[in-house]
């Protein structure tokens, strides 16, 4: 019944190309960047957990678009939040206010926001750049009367550039760093377990590295809290045409390689089959 909720088509199949989305503003902390893109139609149709495919250059190198979660939405604009990790994100980080980007979106299925109960509580867990979709999610949950607590983990304090943004927006925020430079010393999943005792949740939403998501799937079972996890994969197209982005998933009782760009990137934890390390 849980997956039934997910699979009724919560989000339409609308998806648009906007070849001229203007960069309204840019923010930067070390390796991390925010770009706000003016794109009224994509913005109006966006749902938390969905993503964009962004063209980062004009030539065929880099060749493919890059996937980025929709980080925030305001008026006519949506934001992406990204970390520079390779050629494409480096090129993207050189773009300036006023430049235009060719984007495709909104893509995929996002988070299921239906939580039953009168005062539902959600735990939003973001690892590193995986925090990206959780801001849009927290804002949307708030509109639905769900109170969201943010769990934000990174290797070091530099990996937590959005902590002020969440605090400013008034969300309870728990941070962790592996090196102890800020907040809880250790993994964000351990921090979550500790906190769940005083601060139980009706739903876990998460995005981050595979190791973190796998651990959250276990926690979801142990604590009987449904979890919605956002996966990453190399994407050729982002809209179901290449079959490049598969993950092993259980769907309609069958286990197989399923496209995460169309059926996901967000899945209920119990659908996801984790490979051996």
């Amino acid at each position, binding site marked *: 019944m849980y997956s039934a909720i997910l699979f009724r088509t919560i989000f339409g199949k609308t998806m648009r190309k906007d070849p001229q989305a203007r960069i309204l503003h840019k923010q930067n902390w070390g390796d991390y960047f925010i770009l706000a893109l003016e794109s009224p139609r994509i913005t109006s149709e966006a749902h938390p957990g969905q993503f964009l495919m962004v063209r980062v250059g004009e030539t065929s190198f880099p060749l493919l678009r890059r996937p980025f979660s929709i980080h925030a939405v305001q008026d006519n604009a949506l934001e992406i939040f990204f970390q520079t990790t390779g050629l494409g994100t480096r090129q993207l980080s050189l773009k300036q206010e006023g430049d235009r980007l060719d984007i495709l979106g909104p893509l995929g299925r996002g988070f299921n926001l239906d939580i039953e109960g009168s005062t539902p509580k959600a735990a939003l867990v973001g690892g590193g750049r995986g925090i990206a979709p959780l801001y849009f999610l927290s804002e949307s949950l708030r509109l639905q009367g769900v109170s969201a607590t943010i769990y934000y983990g990174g290797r070091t304090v530099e990996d937590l550039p959005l902590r002020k943004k969440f605090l400013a927006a008034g969300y309870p925020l728990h941070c962790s760093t592996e090196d102890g430079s800020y907040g809880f010393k250790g993994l964000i999943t351990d921090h979550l377990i500790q906190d769940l005792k005083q601060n139980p949740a009706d739903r876990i939403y998460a995005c981050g590295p595979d190791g973190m998501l796998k651990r959250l799937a276990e926690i979801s079972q142990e604590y009987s809290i449904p979890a919605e996890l956002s996966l990453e994969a190399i994407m050729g197209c982002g809209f179901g045409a290449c079959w490049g982005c*598969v993950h092993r998933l259980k769907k309609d009782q069958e286990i197989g390689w399923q496209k995460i760009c169309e059926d996901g990137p967000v899945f209920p934890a119990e659908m996801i089959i984790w490979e051996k390390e």
Partner: protein
Amino acid sequence: MTHSDLSIDLGFCRLKNPVIAASGTFGYGTEFSRFFDLNRLGGFVVKGLYSTPRPGNPPPRLVETASGLINAIGLQGIGVKRFCQEILPQLQDLDTAVIINVCGSHEEEYAAVAEHLDGFEGIAAYELNVSCPNVSTGGSCPALDPEATHRIVSLVKKSCRRPLITKLSPNTGKIIEVAKSAEEAGSDAISLVNTFLAMAIDAKTRRPKLANVLGGLSGPAIKPIALRMVYQVAQEIRIPVIGMGGITTSEDVLEYMIAGASAVEVGTANFVDPEAIPLIIDELDVYCQTHNIERLASLTGTLAPL
């Protein structure tokens, strides 16, 4: 605005324009109907079909290289039976050439897939993917060998009622011989090229970047080699040649036509821009008008000496 004549006559089939979406890069067609009217296409080739469903390869299945893409999807698909039940009915009312990419792990499987398809309407032609890796011969494929190609083409041609396009692999030094033997065996057209066998390694982990280790390279990187192959093959055979490899703009289409292609397929570019093909078709129309070309088809094989 008057439009130029972009239509192409392949003999066995007439196309509105020379631009066909390439197999494996256009899903089953329906994925793109969200972006544009499929009837604008010269045609499209659906993802390769075997007689039974195939699970495909484990991920990672894709890796980018300089101006290229290596894929090792492993022909994941629903098999010809489910395709005919679930997908084909959605395609039968289209007014564009629907071409089916026919695969097989051995010769009889190719024929079985074609025979099954023969029972349904709404298909313009079969594209025989003789470049499928053959598990029993350690990953080599019939298209590397003129004799094996001849056998498969003859067999399928005999056992089915539709026109055959034989799709060649570039991983051979004998592309002209293979093309000739497909022609002799009764193929109605030749399409080339499929992807180049390639690999990528992560120097940090010392691991292959694809779970399957090897994959197929496509995209602009391969265009100069593919164009050369089309040029060489077109001079040696009489059946039409459908050229492909790295096409992203109308200029690329013109180059393939000038080299000898009657039509082209566009693959990887569909991933980068789902509207790539309609944009290319519009540009071809403008090109013909600005250059006073009455029939685009007249460009085929017009390479002039330098």
